[in-house]
């Protein structure tokens, strides 16, 4: 058998060189070399307008949360009842709230509390749910059964209702400083959300466990830790990442809802939820007190949801 590629070199060439390629090279398309799923997804992501817009928005909000003084020099807690509910003007772009504090400054400073709640709750949820899911998926049997039932119990609590019970009970039982409330809000969000993350992780771990190469690794005596870290974790990373991104946005919205219900964060903490809750009684006369924090809140949640969406589509080759 003649090697087609060497045979081609000696040929009388009437067509372009590009057409003389070996069979193996034919399989590749014009788009270039085959890439791994992750780099392929990254390549795909960078070209999505949805991703660029949401990533830019998120960066901006993170910047606001980290260094609010970059955006405003006004003290968000300084209130002057003389300018209460004044409409937006040149010196206060977003106007003043019921207490006469600058809404623009409060919106900027409010990013921090909202982002902290969102980020920490997400981390906690992924840690609890991820760890339990991996263990349940890896060991199976009664451990899996027990953990799945426990997850069912927490899953059986509708989110808002569960949070109401947890927050009102714990707050009644103990003292209520600002950091404690924030801690309680984060705790109740994570405690009620981890079952979802656990299920994602568990099914990814089970899928990985059934792969032949993982079976082979086990048969060859690879340690449990190694199998979990090398095979199961990477397999579960993509779906958990997508979940975490979208959940982060949702958690920020939930923080606001809890504040709105009067069981979440509250003054003197500045957060978008607190601002919206404060605006509740004056929205008829001063809708701008609701509008601006609500707009920032929605934009931030939207950014995270869009990011999660974009990542999911990039990671899922079927969608393309």
């Amino acid at each position, binding site marked *: 058998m003649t090697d087609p590629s060497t045979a081609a070199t000696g040929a009388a060439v009437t067509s372009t060189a590009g057409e003389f390629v070996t069979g193996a090279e034919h399989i590749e398309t014009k788009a270039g070399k085959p890439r791994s799923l992750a780099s392929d997804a990254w390549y795909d992501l960078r070209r999505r307008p949805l991703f660029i817009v949401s990533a830019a928005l998120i960066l901006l909000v993170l910047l606001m949360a980290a260094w609010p003084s970059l955006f405003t020099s006004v003290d968000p807690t300084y209130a002057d009842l003389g300018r209460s509910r004044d409409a937006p003007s040149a010196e206060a772009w977003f106007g003043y709230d019921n207490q006469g504090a600058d809404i623009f400054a409060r919106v900027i400073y409010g990013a921090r509390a909202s982002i902290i709640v969102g980020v920490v709750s997400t981390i906690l949820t992924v840690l609890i749910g991820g760890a339990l899911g991996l263990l349940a998926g890896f060991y199976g049997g009664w451990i899996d059964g027990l953990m799945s039932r426990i997850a069912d119990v927490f899953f059986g609590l509708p989110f808002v209702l569960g949070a109401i019970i947890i927050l009102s009970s714990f707050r009644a039982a103990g003292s209520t400083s600002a950091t404690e409330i924030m801690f309680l809000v984060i705790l109740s969000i994570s405690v009620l959300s981890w079952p979802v993350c656990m299920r994602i992780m568990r099914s990814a771990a089970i899928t990985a466990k059934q792969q032949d190469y993982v079976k082979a690794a086990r048969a060859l005596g690879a340690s449990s830790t190694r199998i979990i870290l090398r095979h199961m974790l990477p397999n579960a990373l993509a779906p958990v990442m997508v979940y975490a991104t979208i959940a982060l946005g949702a958690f920020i919205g939930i923080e606001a809802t809890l504040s709105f219900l009067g069981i979440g964060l509250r003054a003197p903490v500045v957060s978008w939820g607190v601002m919206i809750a404060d605006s509740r009684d004056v929205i008829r006369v001063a809708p701008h007190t609701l509008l601006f924090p609500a707009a920032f809140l929605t934009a931030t*949640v939207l950014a995270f949801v869009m990011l999660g969406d974009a990542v999911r589509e990039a990671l899922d080759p079927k969608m393309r």
Partner: protein
Amino acid sequence: MGRYVLRRLLQLVPVFIGTTFLIYWLVWSLPGDRFAGKCGERPCEPAYIAKMTEKFNLDDPLIVQYGKYMLNLLQGDFGITSKEVSVGELIANAYPNTLRLAVVALLIEAVIGLAAGILTGLRGRGFLDNLVLVSTLFLISLPVFVTGFVLQIVLGFELHWIKTTVSASPAPWGHLIAPGFVLGSLSMAYVTRLTRTSIAENKRADFVRTAVAKGLPQRRVVGVHLLRNSAIPVVTFLGTDLGALMGGAIVTEGIFDIKGIGNLVYDGILGKDGAAVTGVVTLLVIVYLISNLLVDLLYAVLDPRIRYD
């Protein structure tokens, strides 16, 4: 089918006990004064404490307390509020309003969500598809109370198209349209996306191709084969949602002042009336669990493959 139902029922029992026990424990057995913050800003009256201690058997061991509480609950006795009103009575007055609101919300989300999802799923990529995708993203990101306030301000205070509050009880159906839309808006977005993905996936399924190859009219291919299969996840979602809507009505009812169960919980939280809150929330959790069970059974009816696992 019978064995499947039995298995699901048996699985529900530990979940039911676990969830209700969790709530009970959180409310009555956390360390510290169990009556702190249960009667508003003031400490509870000794008479109330005595009454509740007796009613909930708070001097018994935790398990016994819980057992007796559940027995009472199953007989419709939800305890009394700090003002010594029967919680069961409050619920009986409030639940028709919440049920109506949930039904309106469910109808709105099902009709609009399904229509938008089917349309975009069948048509595929294009302007309409992008429009629907962006709108659903917006609806998902808008917290319910923002949607509620905006609709209340714009449609109610500015345009006077809707009543800003629905304090009548029982609430007239017509007045519940805007609140129902607010309550159902998030799920509407999910229904749309779920339907769209489900149809887009099944559109290329082999069995749809078979239906075409059998020479069936396009209407029948889409109406019988494509929709029937795509409906399974959507219908189950809608079913679960009815239970979730009952619980999620708190914010909506608060904004529009609908005298429903959510309002009861909200008032209970504001008045720091622990007994009222737990009674109602426990009931809502039970409703949620039962609706999940019914959906599971519905799923078994819709998808024959499930019955024989």
